[in-house]
């Protein structure tokens, strides 16, 4: 128990260091744009591919499950839309990003730690935590919502293609998409995404920053970062859903 409390304490101490004013604004913005590429743009293709196929599969499964003449066909589009907005795009994409971006952040910072690059930053008088971690957190908080919005659109597009493949008409599918649309669901989805973005980057950075040892420990940090951020994503998913939807 004491070990976990110690770890939580260290996490907050690191965050205190991270959220300090950048030493040089122009360097911070340069770092931030680099991170947009590393954290966000490089994940675009995997997010789009997964969203397209999951959207298609969700539609096909719904079509098979509600194959009843008494249930209107437009419900297939309705269910696909809500499944994507409420759960798949924010939560599943966050778990995928925890694996891809989280492991990348932990191993990058961990490698810098074991090769004394972080010490070199500190020795130069640079706040290494803020310099390395803050641009990653801000880039992910700004970029992940865009990924999730794109994921929703591509997922729905995939759903439409999936629906057509098993005989759901475009008119029924579109009617389902328009039925009882609640804009708050999108807000809820984006709020979750912001929290998940912060969790993925800060937890991965934490494990990378405190890597101790050699190359083997970098791998361990990376794995631990992915596992712990995934667990916390699921816990916070539950908490946010309780708070916002009930």
């Amino acid at each position: 128990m004491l070990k976990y409390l110690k770890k939580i304490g260290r996490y907050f101490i690191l965050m205190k260091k991270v959220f300090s004013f950048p030493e040089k604004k122009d360097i911070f913005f340069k770092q931030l744009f680099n991170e947009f590429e590393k954290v966000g743009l490089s994940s675009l293709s995997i997010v789009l591919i997964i969203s397209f196929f999951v959207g298609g599969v969700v539609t096909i499964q719904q079509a098979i499950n509600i194959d009843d003449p008494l249930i209107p066909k437009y419900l297939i589009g309705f269910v696909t839309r809500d499944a994507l907005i409420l759960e798949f795009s924010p939560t599943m994409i966050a778990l995928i990003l925890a694996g891809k971006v989280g492991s990348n952040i932990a191993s990058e910072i961990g490698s810098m730690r074991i090769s004394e690059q972080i010490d070199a930053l500190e020795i130069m008088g640079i706040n290494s935590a803020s310099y390395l971690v803050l641009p990653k957190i801000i880039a992910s908080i700004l970029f992940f919502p865009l990924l999730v919005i794109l994921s929703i659109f591509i997922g729905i597009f995939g759903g439409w293609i999936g629906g057509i493949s098993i005989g759901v008409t475009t008119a029924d599918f579109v009617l389902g998409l328009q039925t009882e649309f609640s804009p708050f669901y999108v807000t809820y989805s984006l709020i979750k995404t912001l929290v998940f973005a912060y969790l993925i980057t800060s937890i991965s950075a934490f494990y990378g920053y405190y890597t101790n040892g050699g190359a083997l420990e970098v791998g361990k940090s990376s794995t631990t970062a992915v596992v712990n951020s995934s667990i916390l994503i699921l816990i916070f998913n539950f908490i946010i859903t309780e708070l916002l939807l009930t």
Partner: protein
Amino acid sequence: MIEVKNLSKSFKEHLVLDDLSVKLERGKANLIIGESGSGKTTFLKCLIGLHSIDNGEILFDNRKFSIMDDKNIRKFRQEIGVLFQGGALYDYLSVEENIMFPLNMFTSFSLKEKKERVNFCLSKVNLEKTNNLFPSELSGGMTKRVAIARAIALNPKYLFCDEPNSGLDPKTAILIDNLILEITEEFNITTIVNTHDMNSVIQIGSNIIFIHEGKILWRGDKNDLIKSKNDELNNFVFASKLFKTLRNENFT
């Protein structure tokens, strides 16, 4: 000059540095020698503030480093250059960008001035025209030299070198040693070199400090070293057959 007074450091129950007091002189290469595990790396890390100290004082030209707050430590560290064992160059930056990094962070130089400074530092380490290479394209010796160039970019008053010759062939090691000595004398820097390379000791050791089991057992220069009667020091320095023979020849 760096003055260390009664410095102690322990990790949990294990006392690593035991009441060390020493003066490290300006314009000289101060060599810290000792066996692996003797506490010399901990000593260096305490000096540069990477480890907190349990007791004692560290004074950099009469400024107490041990009582500085975070803000002052950050400012003060701009006066320090460190050559890490592996070079610690930033992999994602080119040689030029690595050397320019501290200049970007702490100066308001124009790009032209920064490039001039980079080229000057590279010329000091005999690595002209390597500006666009990346750390992965450099040999071990070149990496160390670029790291020295980066360490001197801000004209430091204090230069710390941790095992500068580890992993280098003897010829390159001598080159690095001479470079450190040259820079130390030319810019009148207080240089502290952490080493267990006896060639370095003989080559540049003007103020040698021998640490054994966390204590300073001996101090002197390279000439005193040959004549020393300290058993621990002799066991360490003259461990190899070659050095034993050289010592015996010197005495006979």
